[in-house]
């Protein structure tokens, strides 16, 4: 396989690094999964791993498909209920085994044992962000992971058993002594059921209960309880999302997920944590077998606060503001502002308002920071007093993404819009370009002149696309402050006008937001990323039908909840194509 991969990478005509890219394009936020292959990955027919995209102005297709639109097919599912056009059972490509991300681990453990002390899961290695933190193609096991899991398990046990109230709640019984095997068995069966997300067999219960001998040896019940917690949290069924189901006739690599697997899949997609007791019960009672049943459950889950928080996380990772520091009250207010906007556009089922809403959730300090000219006495929704701002594109959280060289970077901002919001490809600069140094030229000149990178054709290809987008947002300082001229250069007034290739000209965040919202391209991009988030890998050609179907639906409905529900309850989501050697 290794040799085969090398052959692919190094064969004549398959170049792995022709680079057309120019000055100051970002060096972070890449997608390693896109270019990554290895033994296991070779099992997947990856169409996206070699070659690099060039700057284009077409609809985004960096990691995907042939661009062919596919009409929705008739439902051919086994239950015949609730079909979602275009999301039939074979609409998605193969999916690999997924490990819980660090964030998922944290939330799952919190659900199991209550709030965790700071640093409890620090022993777990961090996740790659591609841009999401759940990309299974980057989840290699390692000694550090195993050691980290072992340390985490022991720390959770200590945490649970050190506090009498917490201990009583988690154990669920009061041990009569170090040899109380019945209590240990009851605790183990209950704890493992929630953690492993399935019923525990009597034989498994016996296995855990056998730890009582160690409790007896040490004269302490909690020694055995510790071992149960460690064994459960080290179990592969806890650490990984094990999916099982019934093979589909004539489709040897496809199975229809059983209800318990469906509960886990739903729960991690919609809540970012494992199923709660109610969801487990529904799965055990066979209430996740049809599309309609899944939709009903998913609707309830999305109505839960955890559903909203998961959608906020999805947007934050997608649009790259999840890692922004929140050390100051102002930074925290910026994040709250954007989270509130996401909450509102989701709840009001008008998602494009994310780009166009003429109100914002502001703290008094943030209103001053933005120089709004209106008094804000307490955090809340505020009407923008003029047409300078609208939607997320005027938020400090989003705008800070493009901060560079002590000021805004039109290139980085343009790139953020182009690659993040529009899912368009962006190749690296030529090998002799150092994107980390400020643009060459007269340092006293105004920014448009300094950022003129049209001299080299291979630079112009991308800069003529991304720079005009960024310049249209130049009226906003590095953290979103309004400004009319470049800092320290009163002679350099800011025009604040830009252009998106293929869409047209705009002025400021309101203009850009309206342009993007009307184009439908952001809707398509959002669905590509939603699919990526749900699959744990970048979309490939095999997922093209699903992307198209979701995008069409979302563009029409403008309703993120509807889109998520459509995906979650679709036949495609209720089936799994496993990786094969083909």
């Amino acid at each position, binding site marked *: 396989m290794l040799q085969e991969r090398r052959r692919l990478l190094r064969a004549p005509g398959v170049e792995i690094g022709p680079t057309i890219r120019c000055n100051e394009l970002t060096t972070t936020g*890449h997608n390693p999964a896109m270019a990554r292959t290895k033994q296991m990955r070779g099992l997947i027919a990856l169409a996206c791993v070699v070659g690099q995209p060039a700057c284009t102005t077409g609809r985004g297709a960096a990691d995907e498909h042939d661009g062919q639109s596919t009409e929705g097919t008739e439902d051919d599912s086994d239950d015949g209920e609730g079909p979602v056009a275009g999301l039939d059972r074979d609409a998605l490509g193969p999916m690999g085994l997924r490990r819980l991300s660090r964030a998922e681990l944290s939330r799952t453990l919190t659900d199991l044992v209550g709030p965790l002390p700071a640093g409890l899961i620090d022993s777990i290695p961090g996740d790659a962000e591609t841009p999401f933190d759940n990309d299974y193609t980057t989840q290699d096991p390692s000694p550090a992971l195993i050691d980290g899991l072992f340390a985490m398990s022991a720390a959770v046990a200590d945490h649970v058993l050190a506090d009498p109230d917490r201990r009583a709640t988690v154990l669920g019984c009061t041990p009569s002594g170090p040899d109380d095997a019945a209590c240990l068995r009851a605790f183990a069966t209950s704890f493992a059921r929630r953690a492993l997300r399935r019923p525990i067999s009597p034989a498994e219960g016996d296995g855990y209960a056998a730890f009582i001998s160690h409790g007896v040896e040490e004269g302490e019940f909690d020694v055995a309880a510790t071992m149960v917690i460690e064994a459960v949290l080290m179990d592969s069924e806890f650490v990984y999302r094990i999916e099982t189901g019934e093979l589909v006739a004539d489709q040897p690599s496809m199975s229809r997920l059983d209800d318990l697997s469906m509960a886990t899949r739903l729960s991690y997609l919609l809540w970012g944590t494992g199923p709660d007791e109610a969801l487990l019960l529904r799965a055990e009672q066979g209430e996740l077998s049809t599309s309609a049943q899944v939709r009903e459950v998913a609707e309830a889950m999305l109505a839960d606060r955890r559903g909203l928080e998961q959608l906020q996380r999805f947007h934050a990772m997608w649009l790259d503001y999840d890692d922004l520091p929140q050390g100051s009250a102002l930074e925290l207010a910026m994040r709250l502002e954007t989270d509130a906007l996401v909450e509102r556009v989701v709840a009001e089922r008008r998602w494009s308002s994310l780009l166009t809403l003429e109100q914002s959730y502001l703290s008094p300090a943030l209103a001053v920071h933005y120089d709004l000219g209106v008094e804000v006495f307490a955090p809340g929704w505020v009407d923008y007093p003029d047409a300078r701002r609208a939607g997320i594109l005027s938020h400090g959280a989003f705008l800070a993404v493009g901060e560079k060289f002590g000021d805004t970077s039109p290139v980085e901002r343009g790139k953020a819009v182009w690659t993040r919001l529009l899912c368009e490809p962006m190749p690296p600069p030529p090998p002799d370009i150092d994107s980390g140094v400020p643009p060459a030229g007269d340092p006293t000149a105004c920014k448009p002149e300094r950022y003129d990178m049209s001299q080299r054709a291979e630079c112009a290809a991308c800069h003529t696309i991304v720079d005009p987008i960024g310049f249209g947002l130049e009226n906003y300082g590095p953290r979103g402050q309004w400004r009319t001229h470049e800092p320290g250069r009163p002679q350099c007034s800011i025009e604040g006008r830009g252009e998106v290739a293929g869409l047209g000209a705009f002025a400021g965040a309101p203009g850009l937001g309206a342009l993007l919202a009307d184009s439908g391209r952001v809707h398509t991009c959002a669905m590509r990323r939603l699919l990526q988030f749900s699959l744990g890998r970048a979309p490939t050609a095999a997922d093209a039908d699903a992307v198209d179907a979701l995008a069409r639906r979302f563009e029409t409905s403008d309703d993120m909840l509807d889109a998520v529900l459509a995906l979650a309850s679709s036949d495609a989501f209720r089936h799994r194509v496993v990786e094969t050697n083909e």
Partner: protein
Amino acid sequence: MKTPMTRNHDHRPRVRRRAFLRGLAGSTLALPLLESVGPRTARAGGLDALPRRYVVMVGGTEQNYTVPSSTGADYTMPTGLASLAAVQDRITLVSGLQVPTPSGPNAAIPPGGRGHTLHGDIMPPLLTGYRTPMYAQYQDPTSDQVVAASFDAPTPFGSLQFRAQPHNYKGSNGGTGGVISARADGTNLTPQTSPRLAWEQLTLGVAPDDPAEAAAQLRHIARQRSVLDLVLEHGNHTKARVSQADAIRLEQHFDELRDLETRLDQLGGGGITGTCEPIADPGPDPTQSNHPSTEHGGTTGYSNETLRSEIFVDLVHMALACDLTRVATFQSTIEQCFMSTGPLWGVNLEVHDVTHVDFPERAQVWADIMSWQASFFGRLVAKLADSFEDGVPLLDNTVVVYTNTGGQSGHGSYDMTMAVAGPPQVLVRGQHIRAAGAMPCHVLQTAMQAVGVFDDFGEVPGIVPQLLV
């Protein structure tokens, strides 16, 4: 210092389960030759008598101020490596190295080269000698894993991977994400970033002096073993319920669990004995503090990477001296390092900014950063030189290679300098060698040969002959 002695070796044959598991994936997953044969005989006389050891150490910054002005002996240590002056006679610098880049905008990546001069693609060709798609993770084995597979040593740890910088602080830090070690099957080995956890793992076999405590520790290890037994038993049941592809992925996870199991077996039965000296409990891991980042706004972090590095280096030394492992990697900071320069150098920037931003003290700060990163290599070399095994300095049976991530004066990868220390009967010491046009993988291959591993390495195999005695 007290002379560490190696513990009694367990020469029980180890079943290399990975070899079996790879077979599950079908005939296309044939084992590389390296892993299907035993260790080869060292060329150099005297090395066979004692265990050979191999360490690769990496900084995380585009190097500068690291090329001496003269070659041969008696060169003046450059400012970027000033911290190595104390071990100058024990090491050799090799400069003039390069990782090649495409000849033009649309040219292909040359063999062993990188696609451009950004951060994201330097690490794989630097440490494997293979070109790799931009921002990709490692797809080929790093030299430490080639050596570890060749050694196949009966030690509790097949190899160690440590990194001092615990968090990215911001950004994604290129495609390799702070990993500097990868197996032949493409598995990227995430490093341990917690000194405390590393210490706990390495000292698991250190028996307390108090017999009661020692007995309690043995019972504790036995309990951990029981937990792992149950986890692996459950794993087998789980594996039987899933697809073949999922089962293979699970087996990779179980491989690591079995390695832990083996460690418990080896260390739990008495552990480290004799006069091998474990280091003291390092205490809790240093916590992160945040500092202004004037170039980008906001803040960035520092987690006392100095102390973390010192502990990790001491742990590597201990692990080698106690024969807990014979192969290790260590990285002080992640490539394209976003660590704050405030606490150590008094400038409110990120380390990466120093390679870009002009300010009056820039040259000195940059050199100081280089020297700080190199100092951990110097620390290990000094400790190995001062430790003895059967009367022979550990350094005489250990090869330590140090490199930073690029050079010079920016983000290029030309005129890079690497430092090497090792057996004097094999590797020259106290020299500055100019190896213009050679590649870092050639230094690594030479280092591999110095510990008796003669496999070709990288796409453009070769050595730096001047490095050899």
